[in-house]
């Protein structure tokens, strides 16, 4: 297992003061998250503005092509339009989307029901963190697992990677590729 949980840097939230309660995000491997997504009944990938950065959108699309529906928030949708992505992608305002996720009766983006695993990718750090917190605190029955596959340690996520600074960019991208391979 290549988790970094004994390295202090990894388990400090990216926004240093952003400590939650005792339920801190579990530091896991890409394969673990991959398996979680694969075993989910209704997974959802939520992508944000940072997806438009170098070499990110391709990976979001690769996840989508494995059959995971995508909620593209904010300008992220642009990337999919420009690339003429033909998979299942919806434009969503993230605040609205998260609000819906909290409702057990919600019908989902495709009218077929809500989600059990939602994966955050490229959403502005503090915004994602707040949404993950909402999910963790209120989407408990039925349980929705909010996870992050960003390059930050996300304490409000159920599963998360550690912090990957600019020097570890390649390492991080390889992790995403490993995750994709697991799906």
């Amino acid at each position, binding site marked *: 297992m290549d988790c970094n949980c004994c390295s202090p840097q990894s388990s400090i939230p990216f926004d240093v003061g952003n400590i939650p309660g005792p*339920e801190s995000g579990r530091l896991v491997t890409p394969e673990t998250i991959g398996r979680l997504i694969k075993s989910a009944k209704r997974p959802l990938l939520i992508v944000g503005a940072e997806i438009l950065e170098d070499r990110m959108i391709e990976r979001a699309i690769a996840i989508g092509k494995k059959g995971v529906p995508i909620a593209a928030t*904010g300008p992220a949708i642009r990337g999919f*339009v420009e690339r003429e992505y033909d998979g299942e992608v919806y434009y969503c305002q993230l605040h609205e989307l998260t*609000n819906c996720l909290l409702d057990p009766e919600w019908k989902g983006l495709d009218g077929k029901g809500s989600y059990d695993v939602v994966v955050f990718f490229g959403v502005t750090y503090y915004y994602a963190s*707040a949404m993950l*917190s909402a999910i963790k605190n209120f989407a408990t029955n039925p349980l929705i697992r909010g996870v992050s596959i960003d390059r930050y340690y996300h304490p409000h996520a159920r599963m998360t990677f550690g912090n990957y*600074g600019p020097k570890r960019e390649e390492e991080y991208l390889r992790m995403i590729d490993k995750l994709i391979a697991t799906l």
Partner: protein
Amino acid sequence: MEEITGRFTIEGWENVQINIGEIVEEEEEWEPMGPYPFPKMADLRDWDFKLLNRYKPFYAPQCDVCALCTFGKCDLTGNKYGACGIRMDAMQGRIVLLACLVGCSAHTAHARHMIHDLERKWGLDVPFDLGTEINVTAPLTQLITGIKPKKVRDFLPVLDYIEENIVQLADALHTGQEGSYLDFESKALQMGMLDSLGKEVADMIQIAYYNMPHGESNQPFFEVGMGTIDTNKPTIIVIGHNAPPSFDIVDYLMENGLEDEVELGGICCTAIDITRKYQKAKIASALGRQLRVVRAGFADVIVIDEQCIRADILKQAKAVGSPVICTNDKAMHGLVDRTNDDPDAIINDLVEGNVPGVVILDPFKVGRVAVEVARKIHPKRAKKEYILSDEAFERWLGECIQCGNCTFACPQGLKIGSANKKALEGDTEPLAKLFDQCVGCGRCEQVCKKHIPIVDLMVKAARPIIEKEKGKMRAGRGPVRDTEIRQVGAPIVLGTIPGIIAPIGCGNYPNGTEDVYTIVNEFASRGYIVTLTGCMAIDAAFWLDDEGKSVYERYPDDFDKGCVLNIGSCVSNAHIHGAAIKVASIFARRQIRANYDEIADYILNRVGACGVAWGAMSQKAASIATGFNRLGIPAVVGPHGVKYRRAYLGRRDLPEKWKVYDVRNGEEIQCEPCPEHLIVAVETIEECLPMMAKLCFRVADTPPGRQIKLTHYIDLSMKYLKVMPPDWHLYVRSEADLPLAKKEYYLKLLEDEHGWEIDWEKKKIVSGPIKGVDPSFNPTLLERLLPERR
């Protein structure tokens, strides 16, 4: 009634002292009294519950624990109960109420403080003379209390009311009180309403005492930007929100003919307020650049009053040798209170550097001290250079090891290390670019193991930009005139004016000040009315168009289509509520006296106004937004706004939430989901613009109004997000609502994508819309307005 004051004796009653001034005058019967004069927290709860039912509070906790009493810390994760029995949702409501309490108290205490200071000089009988074009002089006061004030004294019972009710609400924060998040939210909404009232009192008082503009258009210009300060002159920088001490500086300058000898610059609302009378004053910056203005070192003296002042101002000022004068008891920074000392002794101590600063609590003693300190200290200080030298800049850049500590500490997550690296390699642009994105908090510097003065590096790199950052802003005009409302009432309802956009609040923007310009320019150019206050009003002035004009120069400042108005400081914000209330009062002839819920209901259903606090930071911003919300005005906040923890979000997929009564017959009608939210945080500027356009929809829109609003909504979405809004069709009630240009295209879309039935011959919609258009539709949420109840 003829005015009689003083003491009298009546024959036979020699021992009875009659003090006419104390007699409560019979209130002029300007309108019949409505149902809720001076409402307490339970009185408008029905209205709140209507809002909260539709706009259910959404919580994103910042903290999973509570530590407000010694039973704690309690772990509330997963909506658990704390030891006192409160659970996470109610706890979040409690925190929101606390934030609104602090915000509302700031505005109200400011009003009360000004009265105490100024009545000593000018008494309480200073009248409001708002000119011939304003009859509804204090819309919020009239709406909430039923009082129509004529002079400063008339506001005293209003302040008593606010203070009493703030304390009632503060009581509810105690451990072991409210258990329902809905009731906490209702209390927060009450606090928001009190906040709006407190702001109105504060601004009306200063307008009266200082004879500030009374809503006149075409206000004079003044200069904004650090680059506009002439650092060769003795320079005073004022910071805060309580302007009387700064007005005393203005008076001293003018009485002594020093206007051209001494620079008077400011940060935040005190600066906005003095420029409402004295346009030789300059605004150095809004709050976001306070640290950088201080660090730049050109202030020969810093005068602070209250609110939005860096708490470490003394340390920062000391570092550049600027003495500090504290003029308000809320922020005394441990300094000695010299209010009753000999001014010459104070001046001497400050000039000689015997003390880092002083407290002077009498505003009328500040002017001379501040000006004379600046004049005397300037020649000494001028010799120092506080901007990094080229050598120091290089040396510090070389020290950086790109460890990333600063980035982890930065609220914006700015990548300082790599920018430093680029700068060392000769490309200072990335570092200079950070200057505007940085909110000037200083957290990065504290965690840098190399002790690199990061903020100073950015200032150095951005210096050429800073020197060019000179904008023009108009003086804050204050209230919207009744005559203007008479002009715009119809166009707002008809749709020639698609909405009122109100950028307000602080500078905690996700991506710098340019977004402010974008918001203002985008909406003004589309014919919306744009009304600004506070920090956003300042930041809007920094960006110039191709002709070198700021938005204030480019657009007129009438309350009319395509205009951009500087309303004033944060407390002037009340005039935006006031304008909405006046639409109901003047245009629709509704009775406003003590009639809050009816007017809020009117605004929610009819007045297409939307606030935006793109960098909402403070507790005041929280209470301001909540006050807007109770009055039926939605607000958008930038992404940092999620840290307020609570949003009021509608659900357009739940038809049962979108019902209104038709006053004509009491029928409950299914309607469009508008406005869809009351407060929502959006992530980027690209989402902000269409969201705001959407939140200008109202159920009572006429077809031309809806058509133009829908056009902008679709257009902004296409322009910034490159997609049709997913919900555009929900706002289409008939073919008349469709954007004219591509009507057939839209009909086709409705048919193809939404399964609507179209009569292609007549180019008419046969079925599909939530409801049709009915020109005499008269929507309300209030049962009490229905025929059988009245």
